[in-house]
């Protein structure tokens, strides 16, 4: 790490403005659709209703609905808070999945375009090492954007809560909802951060693979990235009748979720009585498994090897 590193990272956002704009647009879309749904949805009459069993009767619901709502109102705050946990994690999921797609295209493009437009000769006329360049691009993908996602998620959560509160406070539905809990909000940030760090480590080999192809492919870099994971398992099946590569790839994609051993009952909230507590939800992620797994660190080692190869290719490749 050196003093020019921040400038190299800034440079990436100059060139790849979508890294900044796309997640913001996505967040805007989420907030807009959510707001629209809240306004269209029930409970928006803003009638101040005293929260008790009688007021539920006044809503003209059927017996089943009434019972559900009464039960919900009676739920202890500790269990109501899990609504926060769900919604916060859902927002994190929506934003991080989208950001992953943006980062995918960033990674396959970042070392390819500079060769295509020959601007690499300009960058190489400056005293910046190839390691600094490649690592700055990796940093953008695995540190800067993920931190941005966490911040954007926190902001979105706040916005959505404010919208819900403005619309529903004092109404019957509002009384089903938990009060704003700063602690729950903070905990959701901590869990999101943990899931992010684990995910970055687990999926680091994919980032390394994409950077490597971006530095290597002469053309059609997108095809090069998606073709081998499809073609190799097919060829293996055809010629050897086995599925080792497919199983390996599947494990590399789904292994992260398996390692976390998501406790499924923490996410089952179909019945009010089974409504999990907020702690149940947050504790459902067994992140320590991810950090203790040899497989995680083997993947990190593989990523490091591919990053090293990427630096070598950028350093010694002779584009004539």
């Amino acid at each position, binding site marked *: 790490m050196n003093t*020019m590193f*921040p*400038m*190299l990272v*800034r*440079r990436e956002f*100059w*060139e790849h403005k979508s890294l900044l704009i796309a997640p913001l647009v996505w967040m805007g879309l989420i907030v807009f659709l959510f707001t629209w749904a809240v306004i269209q949805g029930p409970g928006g009459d803003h009638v101040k209703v005293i929260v008790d069993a009688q007021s539920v009767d006044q809503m003209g619901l059927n017996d089943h609905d009434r019972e559900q709502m009464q039960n919900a109102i009676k739920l202890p705050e500790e269990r109501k808070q899990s609504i926060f946990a769900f919604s916060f994690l859902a927002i994190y999921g929506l934003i991080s999945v989208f950001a992953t797609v943006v980062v995918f295209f960033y990674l396959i493009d970042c070392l390819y375009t*500079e060769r295509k*437009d*020959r*601007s*690499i*000769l*300009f960058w*190489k*006329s*400056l*005293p*910046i*090492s190839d390691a600094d360049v490649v690592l700055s691009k990796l940093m953008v993908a695995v540190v800067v954007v993920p931190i941005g996602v966490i911040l954007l998620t926190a902001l979105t959560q706040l916005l959505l809560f404010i919208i819900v509160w403005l619309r529903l406070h004092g109404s019957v539905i509002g009384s089903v909802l938990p009060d704003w809990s700063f602690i729950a909000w903070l905990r959701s940030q901590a869990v999101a951060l943990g899931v992010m760090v684990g995910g970055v480590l687990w999926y680091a080999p994919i980032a390394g693979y994409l950077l490597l192809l971006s530095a290597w492919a002469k053309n059609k870099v997108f095809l090069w990235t998606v073709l081998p994971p499809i073609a190799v398992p097919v060829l293996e099946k055809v010629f050897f009748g086995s599925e080792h590569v497919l199983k390996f790839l599947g494990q590399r994609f789904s292994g992260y979720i398996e390692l976390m051993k998501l406790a499924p009952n923490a996410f089952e909230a179909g019945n009010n009585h089974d409504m999990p507590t907020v702690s149940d939800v947050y504790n459902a992620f067994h992140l320590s498994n991810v950090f203790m797994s040899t497989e995680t660190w083997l993947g990190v080692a593989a990523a490091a090897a591919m990053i090293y190869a990427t630096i070598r290719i950028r*350093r*010694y490749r*002779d584009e*004539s």
Partner: protein
Amino acid sequence: MTAIIEARGLTKRYGDTPVLRGINLDIQPGRIVGLIGPNGAGKTTAIKAILGLTSFDGELKVLGKDPRTERNELMKEVCFIADVAVLPRWLKVSQALDFVAGVHPRFDRKRAEEFIARTDIRLDRRVRQLSKGMVTQLHLALILAIDARLLVLDEPTLGLDLLFRRSFYDNLLNDYVDKERTILVTTHQVEEIENLLTDVIFIQHGNIALDAPMETLGERFVQLIPGVGKVDAARALKPFYEREVFGRVAMLYDGRKLEELAALGETRTPSVADLFVAMMQPVSAPAAPQKEAA
């Protein structure tokens, strides 16, 4: 004084094709050297080797450093303009200044801004919005504001019109050459940089065909247009090149005494362009040019 560029047996092959066949170079500080050769002669490969952009065999020291292993250190003191098109099109002029200022310890931002202020380039423009000539001006502004010891220009004015080419070299002379800095330049337009150069190197088929200071060219090479009836006598003195111009024959000599030739007709010092043509395409050359380095 130690040489800025020192090469011994610099060799490069692409597969089976030799591109540089063991060339030797000694470029001293403060020289302005034109590296001139036809397409495919090895100019760009030589420059790539000097800049650490390609692998090679043989010995090569640039500013006393090995471009293969000490490239990052080297690039603090070496600048290059590879081609007019290499500034990325998405880059804003102000971003270009920010970036180079952020990564180059020897960049004088104020100087670059002063240079840009003399042009029509606006700071909020992107490279894609600039004309080809303006892109070159911008690139030159960035490069000239770097206090480098060696400036390498590989076809810097390719594709520019005459006015921009002229102002490019004028700016280069005014802003750069007054210092103890060395310039290595390749170009096709020999005649345009002839007056700028202190040294000229011809490269052909991966060999150095000529490596000489400009001031020695007049001592070594003479062009003769023999008088009527003296063509055979002139030929007997073994010119290495001859061609017909408007019905008269022009002959080029290497290492003949001026007095000896003056007796046979009109003599003058050939231009670098004349020499280049003569040495690169020895159409009717009875004798091969004397080679300085094999």
